[in-house]
């Protein structure tokens, strides 16, 4: 991996002075010397797996099973971030050692492995999980064993934990601005909501419906709301229902293998971007790999990150990612969010001057990360990230063209009033 200190994108609150100069090569180095001389007994009072030279963290994703399709990108991004941090000298002068565990797309296995990481391996932090179900399965364990989880996926919200940093967007961040944009730019009045049948699409659609019916200009309405079991491969009847309803906007949260079937069949039924406006919150560059750019072309996605984002941080990130994982690899929203995890953890540790989970949790709010590929992010009091939402239009080559970006950072609001 090509890496030098100029790639150090980290900066934290207490070093505000340096932030303005973050792009300068040498300025990663203070992070190196900082704390390197702190004795282990001082930075680790809770018997975590931290030695004078090494700190152990866990990585818990599905490398096998149906979710491996999605989680592979997160595994790669986290590994990349950790390699970069190590190349810079690690955290508090300690190199990061990773213990990889396979959740195997099975929630009980996630629970078992998280226990193993926290109780047996005493890892200082865990980067992992993807589905809501796996997070829900491990959450009580993280809370009881007092571990720290960096969770990368955009998700339904309705959760907030001292022991979790949510590096993806919660539902309101991802959805509300996207719908506003659809009304403003695409003049959408009628919406057809489609989702896979589980908590994230259901909650997302609930929020979407409340927003459409309560907050968008009068006359906006939902003309259909449909859920299909995970793994459904046939959508012809659904597509006919959509044709009957003739919505201005199809709003989609279909996931997994179903995604591919949905878009291929949509195109085959003559529903193309030329005739129909479609906004999805579940298709990233990773999914387009399976769907095929030609089947997705012209449709829109509402995300906080697209690989094509034009900023220096992202250029470096994409370059480093491709150098490590091959020129054909793609980076989706979740992959980028997973990349943030180790960096945010490093920043929190350095701010707290300790690996102790309590101190990290307390230190996290307010931490800023200017080097994020998605550009500036900041950790909120509620352990979610302030972030911008963007609208991308799918291109034939599988990339998205960013057509709009929220002007402000959107505040994370996992328990949105009026949307429950």
């Amino acid at each position, binding site marked *: 991996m090509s890496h030098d200190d100029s790639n150090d994108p980290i900066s934290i609150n207490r070093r505000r002075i340096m932030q303005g100069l973050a792009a300068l090569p040498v300025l990663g180095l203070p992070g190196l010397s900082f704390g390197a001389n702190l004795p282990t007994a001082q930075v680790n009072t809770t018997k975590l797996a931290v030695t004078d030279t090494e700190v152990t963290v866990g990585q818990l994703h599905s*490398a*096998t*099973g*149906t979710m*491996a*399709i999605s989680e*592979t*990108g997160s595994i790669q991004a986290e590994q990349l971030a950790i390699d970069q941090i190590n190349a810079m000298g690690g955290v508090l002068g300690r190199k990061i050692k990773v213990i990889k565990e396979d959740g195997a797309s099975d929630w009980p296995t996630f629970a078992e492995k998280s226990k193993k990481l926290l109780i047996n391996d005493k890892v200082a932090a865990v980067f992992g999980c993807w589905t809501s179900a796996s997070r829900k399965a491990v959450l009580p364990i993280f809370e009881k064993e007092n571990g720290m989880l960096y969770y990368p996926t955009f998700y339904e919200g309705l959760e907030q934990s001292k022991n979790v940093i949510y590096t993806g967007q919660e539902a309101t961040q991802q959805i509300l601005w996207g719908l506003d944009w659809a009304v403003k730019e695409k003049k959408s009045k009628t919406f057809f909501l489609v989702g896979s*049948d589980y908590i994230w699409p259901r909650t997302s659609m609930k929020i979407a419906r409340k927003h459409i019916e309560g907050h968008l200009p009068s006359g906006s309405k939902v003309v259909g709301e*449909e*859920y*299909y*079991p995970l*793994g*459904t*491969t*046939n959508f*012809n*009847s*659904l*597509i*006919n*229902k959509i*044709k*009957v309803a003739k919505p201005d906007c199809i709003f989609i949260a279909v996931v997994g*293998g179903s*995604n*591919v*079937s949905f878009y*291929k*069949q949509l*195109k*085959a*039924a*003559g*529903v*193309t971007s030329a005739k129909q406006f479609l906004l999805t919150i579940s298709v990233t560059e*990773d*999914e*387009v*790999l*399976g*769907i*095929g*750019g*030609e*089947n997705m072309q012209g449709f829109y996605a509402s995300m906080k990150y697209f690989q094509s984002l034009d900023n220096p941080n992202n250029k470096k990130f994409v370059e480093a990612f491709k150098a490590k994982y091959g020129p054909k690899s793609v980076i989706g929203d979740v992959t980028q969010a997973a990349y943030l995890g180790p960096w945010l953890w490093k920043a929190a540790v350095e701010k707290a001057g300790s690996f102790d989970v309590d101190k990290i949790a307390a230190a996290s709010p307010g931490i800023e990360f200017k080097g994020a590929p998605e550009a500036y992010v900041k950790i909120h009091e509620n352990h979610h990230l302030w972030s911008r939402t963007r609208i991308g239009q799918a291109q034939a080559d599988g990339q998205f063209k960013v057509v709009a970006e929220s002007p402000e950072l959107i505040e994370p609001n996992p328990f949105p009033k009026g949307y429950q």
Partner: protein
Amino acid sequence: MSVSEMLNIGMMQGFAGLSLFAVLLLMGLGLAIIFGQMGVINMAHGEFMTIGAYTIYLFSTITENHFPKLVQSYFIFAIIAAFFIAFAVGWFIEWSLIRHLYKRPLDTLLATWGISLGMQQIFRSFIGPKEVSPTLPDWLMGSWSPHEGLDIPINGMFVMALTLVVTGGVLLALYKSRWGLRVRATVANRTMANAIGINTKKTDRLTFAIGCGIAGIAGAAFTTIGSTGPTSGSLYIVDAFLVVTFGGAASLLGTMASAFGIAQMQSISEFFMTGSMARVITLLTIVLILMMRPQGLFASKIRR
């Protein structure tokens, strides 16, 4: 909604039912041969379909990179190749494992389950854990729109045509060829078939491999409507078994009837209720009918 629009929707919905019928039949056909005729519970059926899908991906990649002029026509050759690759893998697996298990049908389930795990991991390790998307020829994409408001999916028509050809081929082979005669004789009475000089071992191997080959064709065809990834096959396996069981395992006619019944039930109920409820209702109906008629829709009455 105007009358002509309702007519259009009605026609498209009718076509949706038919195309689901074709999909179910195509995925069930290979299994009907292996499970129905041989009694082998092939849990790796889905993975043989994945082999077919990856064959298309392989061909599409090679064509794109080396023979860009053939992009419009490679698909047909790839489907034929999918049959032979799946056939060869099936042949090998029959030779190495299945042939030792004919007397223990339930054990074939466990062994093929292991095969399915192993094959999924092979796909993941050697092709990659993410989904892929083969580039399909333009003529397979999009819809045929005879007039405004009516769109008939071309990939659906393609799958239907392919199903027709494969089903016809299987029926022809089973009832008109030497192989078919041998298969039917072996199913009816293995010992006697052996005694009259039929090499039942060879017949078994050929039958298993042909079943796998058809699964390969199905998987190849489904790249037009579904995903291609290490676990894509697992999306189809349960439906495939249901189709075959519901039809009455030993009868190809039954497999067809059951695929038709399930497809209509599913697609009509989906139109009037949510997808999840439609699925529950369809499955429940199947189980209730199977409880009342355990031998399946079609099974001949014989002296037991």
